[in-house]
């Protein structure tokens, strides 16, 4: 086994192969591009989080006394847009997916490395447009850009916000395209579809949604921009248009978008649960099919966001029924994770704590989605904090916890360093407690009737105590999120050097050094084993290496 030795005697890795800004900004190495994305994702997570903190501060008191009403509209709009388009949608695929998919399938890189770099540049350009939007006064349409408010009645930066979302959407499409072609065409010999890690299956399903759904919201946004610029009436009722048409086109993407956000997280959870239960996944085929099932059925339910907007009752009934169906594959996954853990040898390292959090909180979020699917209930709780709590349970309690779990699980591989496990567990605990304290009261608030997007609730001062609890929780959550940022950076300099396989986990990524060399494998691996072959991996035994 020959590895290039640098002058210092270090092994050559993707990190030390070349230094300098140009070697990063012009890289086509999927691993470096993943880290470039990590910078952007982290930045926007804090921008979005900052807006959230301002929202929670305002809601501490019933009166609207921290900011103006218009400013409050901008806060929740930009919190939503930044979090959805610049954090949640790209986070797992662009960081962990980019880094791991080629390695997990035994390839040297993605199918189109230069398009991968282009994806990152598009994300950054979209991000800069968003920053410009924020700095030049913000936008207050709500993250959903509903017309005719966005096309006719507002003087804020709707067009630049729309452009930011359009450009970042193009980035998302190219990433999805890259993943689909890579998974179809670049698998190593012996890596059949039935041996793929579920992390790869999850990104395959996600990519299908990305390529089919994103273009529709892209054209919807283009039409909004054209309408604004040329005084057209496509979505404007006073000019003969229908605002609901915008909502149909918008939600045709934005509902599947929530599955773009959650499916990669589900892939992460499958990897973590198997490793920390020392067991194969229960029902591999069902898990893979459930991922595809969620992707497909997820395209059939979009108008459940429009039940009270004025669609026909008959359409609402159809969409309500279809929405119940989409819960089935998700439930299958929760049952299978649980069955995987049954009679497993459970370890409670940080990644597993996040996985536990995901399974519990995603279940609550998902079940409350079924409440909302019921027309009778939806009429009462739509546009209240019940909905806000529902989607935060899935996106924050689910997806963000899965993202953090994945970052901890693969951090040794990515950086070659171990994070401090004690701090990791503390942070996970703070995140879990902080999250529930923030968002559980919001279910109750919504049920009690507190509307969302309201800056002032002085007509109902009885809402205050739950709002105070929620804000307190948000503070704890913020600390929980800050800790990993600090100790990950700390670990890059002071962390223990990571072995190839610190978790004794199954999968090709654990058979190469930490961090990997630039082309991943010395020689193309030939796969002869099934996924999650934990019954073959003995405890405390050196796992045979691929190189």
């Amino acid at each position, binding site marked *: 086994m020959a590895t290039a030795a640098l002058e210092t005697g270090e092994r050559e890795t993707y990190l030390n192969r070349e230094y300098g800004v140009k070697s990063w900004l012009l890289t086509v190495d999927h691993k470096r591009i993943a880290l470039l994305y990590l910078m952007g994702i982290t930045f926007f997570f804090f921008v979005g989080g900052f807006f959230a903190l301002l929202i929670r501060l305002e809601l501490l008191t019933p009166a609207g006394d921290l900011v103006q009403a218009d400013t409050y509209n901008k806060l929740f709009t930009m919190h939503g847009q930044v979090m959805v388009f610049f954090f949640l949608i790209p986070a797992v695929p662009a960081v962990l997916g980019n880094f791991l998919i080629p390695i997990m399938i035994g390839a040297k890189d993605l199918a189109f490395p230069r398009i991968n770099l282009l994806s990152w540049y598009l994300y950054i350009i979209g991000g800069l447009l968003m920053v410009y939007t924020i700095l030049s006064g913000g936008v207050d349409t709500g993250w959903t850009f509903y017309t005719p408010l966005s096309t006719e009645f507002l003087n804020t930066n709707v067009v630049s916000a729309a452009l930011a979302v359009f450009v970042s959407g193009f980035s998302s499409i190219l990433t999805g395209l890259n993943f689909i072609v890579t998974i*179809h065409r670049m698998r190593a010999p012996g890596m059949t579809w039935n041996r793929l890690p579920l992390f790869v299956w999850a990104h395959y399903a996600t990519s*299908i949604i990305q390529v*089919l759904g994103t273009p*529709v919201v892209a054209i919807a946004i283009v039409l909004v921009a054209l309408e604004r610029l040329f005084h057209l009436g496509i979505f404007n009722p006073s000019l003969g248009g229908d605002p*609901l*048409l915008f909502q*149909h086109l918008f939600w*045709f993407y934005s509902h599947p978008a929530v599955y773009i956000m959650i499916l990669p997280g589900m892939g992460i959870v499958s990897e973590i649960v198997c490793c920390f239960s020392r067991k194969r996944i229960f029902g591999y085929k069902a898990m893979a099919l459930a991922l595809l099932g969620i992707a497909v059925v997820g*395209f*059939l339910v*979009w*108008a459940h966001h429009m039940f009270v907007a004025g*669609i*026909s*009752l*008959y*359409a609402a009934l*159809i*969409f309500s029924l279809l929405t119940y169906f989409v819960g089935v594959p998700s439930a299958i996954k929760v049952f299978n994770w649980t069955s995987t853990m049954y009679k497993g040898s459970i370890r409670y390292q940080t990644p597993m704590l996040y996985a536990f959090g995901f399974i519990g909180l995603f279940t609550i979020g998902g079940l409350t989605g079924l409440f909302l699917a019921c027309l009778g209930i939806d009429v009462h709780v739509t546009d209240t904090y019940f909905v806000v709590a529902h989607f935060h349970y899935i996106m924050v309690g689910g997806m963000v916890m899965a993202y953090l779990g994945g970052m901890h699980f693969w951090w040794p591989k990515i950086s070659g360093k171990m994070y401090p496990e004690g701090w990791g567990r503390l942070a996970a605990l703070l995140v879990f407690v902080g999250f529930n304290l923030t968002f559980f009261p919001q279910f109750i608030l919504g049920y009690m009737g507190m509307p969302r997007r309201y800056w002032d609730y002085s007509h109902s001062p009885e809402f205050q105590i739950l709002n105070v609890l929620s804000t307190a929780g948000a503070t704890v959550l913020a600390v929980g999120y800050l800790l990993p940022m600090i100790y990950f950076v700390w670990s890059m300099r002071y962390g223990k050097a990571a072995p190839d396989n610190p978790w004794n986990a199954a999968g090709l990524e654990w058979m190469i050094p930490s961090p990997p060399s630039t082309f991943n494998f010395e020689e193309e691996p030939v796969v002869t084993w099934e996924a999650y072959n934990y019954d073959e991996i003995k405890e405390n035994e050196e796992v045979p290496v691929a190189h």
Partner: protein
Amino acid sequence: MSEHISSVKLYITIWIALMVGTILTVMAARIDLGVFNPIVALAIASTKAVLVVLFFMHVKYTHEKLTKLVIVTAIFFFLILLALTMADYGTRLWT
């Protein structure tokens, strides 16, 4: 590469078929077929599209089943967009 190479004759034939289709669709538009006018127009357009896909884009001769699956998937989801949207618009005035 063992790619199928179509003959010039085949391409010209398909081109002529597309021309004929164009002329037919203009002629059919000039006749009152009632509710069938749009149906005929779309049928002719779809036939032309299928000819372009199969012969000009070589899908008929590809060894890749995946290409056909990709195309069918896209058409399916496009039709879902149209069908479920029209499920709303078509039933809004029902009592």
